[in-house]
């Protein structure tokens, strides 16, 4: 296994790692092992962290063993008493005999209660489940005998089989076109469930070629880091785990329980790129889980391996809020994208006014942590201050000129050291320059390119590198302009800089796509901001410049397109990972004309605006 590809974890990178039968020594280093006996089975349990702290139990899925949680467990162990166990038949736990009938959810509930009683006899535990761990978790969270033993439940990519049964029934009962499509979509995604119901073949495949090629398949298809997982027990885990499906799926899908209401607060983390589970499965979840917090991540199925930072942050926040008994913050994040950006670190340049400020506020409203960067420290501080009022968890203001390489490098170092790796970077800072090419001095050109282009380059270079090195995705938004499509005789410098930003974004998008980092170029158009009032107008004396600025500002005021709408477009673009986003009507039509009627575009470029 190539150690160089290993993702950043809290484990010391020591000697060459080997796949061992246990995997505990390497992946769960520092863990305290114990065995728990229940119903004729021996379960292998590992504990990390101080046992006086709140207990968080992590339950793995299929085909996995407890080591799948290694990255998350190490991130949580300083704050919590982290407990992991191998589900019966997996990893170092023993398997029931006979296998048939030994994996029912009732028996799995017994196992969980035995582990909970052993590791935290006095206090209820916080449960986190991924995949089948989450399917089990829903059972634990909805049956009566776990009441008082469970404090909260975080579900990742694993629906309750009972809720799933009701979901199917509802759609069969009233198959509107949309609901029928949802049913067929999930039906197709569940192909592996049907395959696992065939006798013997899955076992043969797992113990043969599939078991061998699985790690490589995972790296290719799911983009998980190659870090010594899965352990050598994979073929056995996967072969035994087939009985999870055979013992439970048909029974529950046919006759789902009607009392499957969650008796604890539930945090639902939905990966939007999951190839096995449709997002629509959770549409009606609010009726089953009264205290539901939704989170989404733009990743595939194996979240604990691909996004341990975000996952552990959400788990920690959720558990802490339940432990302290008070709501985590006031006001609660709202807005349409709170599930996506809550707790994420967002850096916005040019956040002292206009689109940057509105964007900072929009992210703040969604519960993000916001770093407001501006050349003018006072207005950056104001943005940070107001952002906290509308719901940002934490805000910081930084006074930086984006065109200054050293200042930007210092900022990147400070952010990485003190606030963490940026999840969303918005390179928004820019200046306006207007005037004929022959009137534009080299100083004007330098200033324009320094801010509008080099500012973006520095941002992408420094923070993009941090994102890529972390290997857990991210997003970069660059503010280009409608002038990037539309040549204009009065905007040579500005249009050039923005066209460069557009092309830079497209190239960078191609480069970073493989690392799960999206890049968006936003092209706003005429937006009612300060840009016209502060623009440099070349080839004019001071008075004429003042006059024209004022006139342009008034025209922008009459157009009155609010920066808040651009901010909404930016958040939407990040959620949808769009490449180029023209925002206003003029930006959209400029893009269409540029594509389909280049002659018209050139004709428009010749018009001398009556300013």
């Amino acid at each position, binding site marked *: 296994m190539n150690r160089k590809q290993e993702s950043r974890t809290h484990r010391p990178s020591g000697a060459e790692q080997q796949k061992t039968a246990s995997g505990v020594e390497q992946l769960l280093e520092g863990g305290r092992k114990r065995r728990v006996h229940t119903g004729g089975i021996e379960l292998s349990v590992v504990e990390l962290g101080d046992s006086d702290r709140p207990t968080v139990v992590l339950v793995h899925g299929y085909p996995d063993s407890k080591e799948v949680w290694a990255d998350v467990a190490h991130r949580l162990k300083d704050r919590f008493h982290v407990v992991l166990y191998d589900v019966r038949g997996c990893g170092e736990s023993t398997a029931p005999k006979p296998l048939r009938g030994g994996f029912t959810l009732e028996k799995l509930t017994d196992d969980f209660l035995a582990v909970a009683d052993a590791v935290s006899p006095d206090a209820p535990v916080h449960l986190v489940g991924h995949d089948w761990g989450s399917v089990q978790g829903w059972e634990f969270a909805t049956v009566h005998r776990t009441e008082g033993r469970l404090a909260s439940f975080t579900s990742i990519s694993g629906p309750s089989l009972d809720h799933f049964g009701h979901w199917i029934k509802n759609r069969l009962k009233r198959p509107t076109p949309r609901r029928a499509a949802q049913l067929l979509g999930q039906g197709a995604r569940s192909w592996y469930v049907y395959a696992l119901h065939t006798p013997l073949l899955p076992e043969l495949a797992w113990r043969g070629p599939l078991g061998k090629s699985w790690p490589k398949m995972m790296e290719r298809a799911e983009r998980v880091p190659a870090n010594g997982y899965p352990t050598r027990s994979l073929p056995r885990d996967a072969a035994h785990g087939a009985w999870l499906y055979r013992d439970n799926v048909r029974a529950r899908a046919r006759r789902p329980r009607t009392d499957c209401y969650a008796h604890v607060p539930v945090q639902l983390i939905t990966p939007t790129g999951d190839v096995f589970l449709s997002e629509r499965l959770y549409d009606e979840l609010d009726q089953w889980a009264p205290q539901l917090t939704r989170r989404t991540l733009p990743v595939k199925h194996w979240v604990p391996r691909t996004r341990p930072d975000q996952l552990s942050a959400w788990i920690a926040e959720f558990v802490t809020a339940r432990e302290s008994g008070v709501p985590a913050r006031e006001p609660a994040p709202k807005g349409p994208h709170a599930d996506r950006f809550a707790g994420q670190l967002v850096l916005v340049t040019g956040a002292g006014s206009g689109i940057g400020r509105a964007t900072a506020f929009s992210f703040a409203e969604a519960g993000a942590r916001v770093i407001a960067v501006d050349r003018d420290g006072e207005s950056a501080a104001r943005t940070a201050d107001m952002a906290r009022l509308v719901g940002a968890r934490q805000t910081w203001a930084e006074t930086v000129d984006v065109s200054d390489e050293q200042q930007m490098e210092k900022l990147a170092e400070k952010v990485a050291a003190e606030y963490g790796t940026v999840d969303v970077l918005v390179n928004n800072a820019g200046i306006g320059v207007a005037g004929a090419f022959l009137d534009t001095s080299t100083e004007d050109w330098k200033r324009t390119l320094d801010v509008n282009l080099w500012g973006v380059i520095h941002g992408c270079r420094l923070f993009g590198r941090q994102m890529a090195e972390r290997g857990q995705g991210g997003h970069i938004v660059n503010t280009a302009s409608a002038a990037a499509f539309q040549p204009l005789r009065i905007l040579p410098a500005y249009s050039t800089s923005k066209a460069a930003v557009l092309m830079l974004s497209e190239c960078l998008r191609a480069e970073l796509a493989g690392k799960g980092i999206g890049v968006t170029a936003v092209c706003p158009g005429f937006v009612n901001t300060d840009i016209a*009032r502060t623009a440099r107008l070349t080839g004019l004396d001071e008075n004429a410049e003042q006059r024209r600025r004022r006139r342009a500002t008034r025209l922008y*005021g009459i157009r009155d397109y609010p920066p808040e709408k651009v901010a909404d477009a930016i958040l939407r673009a990040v959620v949808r990972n769009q490449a180029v986003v023209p925002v206003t009507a003029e930006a959209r039509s400029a893009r269409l004309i540029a594509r389909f009627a280049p002659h018209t575009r050139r004709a428009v470029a010749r018009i001398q605006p009556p300013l």
Partner: protein
Amino acid sequence: MRPATIGYSPADLRGFREVQQLSYACAESVAARLEPGVTEREAARMQREWLRERGVRDWFHLPFAWFGDRTAFTGFKIPLQFFPTNRALEPGMPFILDMAPIHNGYTSDIGYSGCLGLNPVHERLMTDLREHRELILREVRERRPLREIYEDVERLMAGQGYVNRHRAYPFGVIAHKIDRVKERRWSPTVFGFGTNALRGLAKDALHGHRDGWSPLWSPYRFSDHPPRPGLWAVEPHLGFRGTGAKFEEILVVTDSRDPGESAFWLDDDLPHVRRRREEATTV
């Protein structure tokens, strides 16, 4: 002694001050009676009834009430949306009561912003409105063109991180002239506005059009003139992501050469001014 304003005797100013006090008393009384579940229509009716009981028979405009994000005029496209709706008040919601009664021939036009319970955003907006009150008075005393003052107010709002929401009013006005209104037996309203008061405004508009000024203080060219002596109901309105706040009160503009006398707020004993004084003393 020369009256403070050409055309208005001290008794007149006292009359305007009294009806403004009456309006703010009405606003405070209604605001104290607001509770979760009260709708905008009910709040508007409460204002109307309170003032009718105290002898108000004519209006510059009928009382308005805006709750929640309607205080920031979110999604307002047509003027009919200003009228009170069935939106119910909820805890933490900001609200604005806006009324313009005419009493004994004197007009007032006031705006009262409040909040049901705690709302830090609203608190901040109310605090930041103070700067606007100072800025407007200062620049009017400097005899700057109204259009420029409008732009300066807008710039201050943008600097504070807010959106100019008085742009949503008819003609985008930040202020308009008000005047004495003759008491008539019949005083109908059209789309919420009293015909008698509108007649005065129209007359001003006509005269102003001839002389190069306008009774509407707007961002447009027709407001590109120095402050015109008279009584102006000034109403800067801040909006911030679904929360709006404003005040509205009478600014007296005279033709005096003494800067202190050339313009002054008719009355400083108003809730939003007292609030500032209390804030200042606690600090």
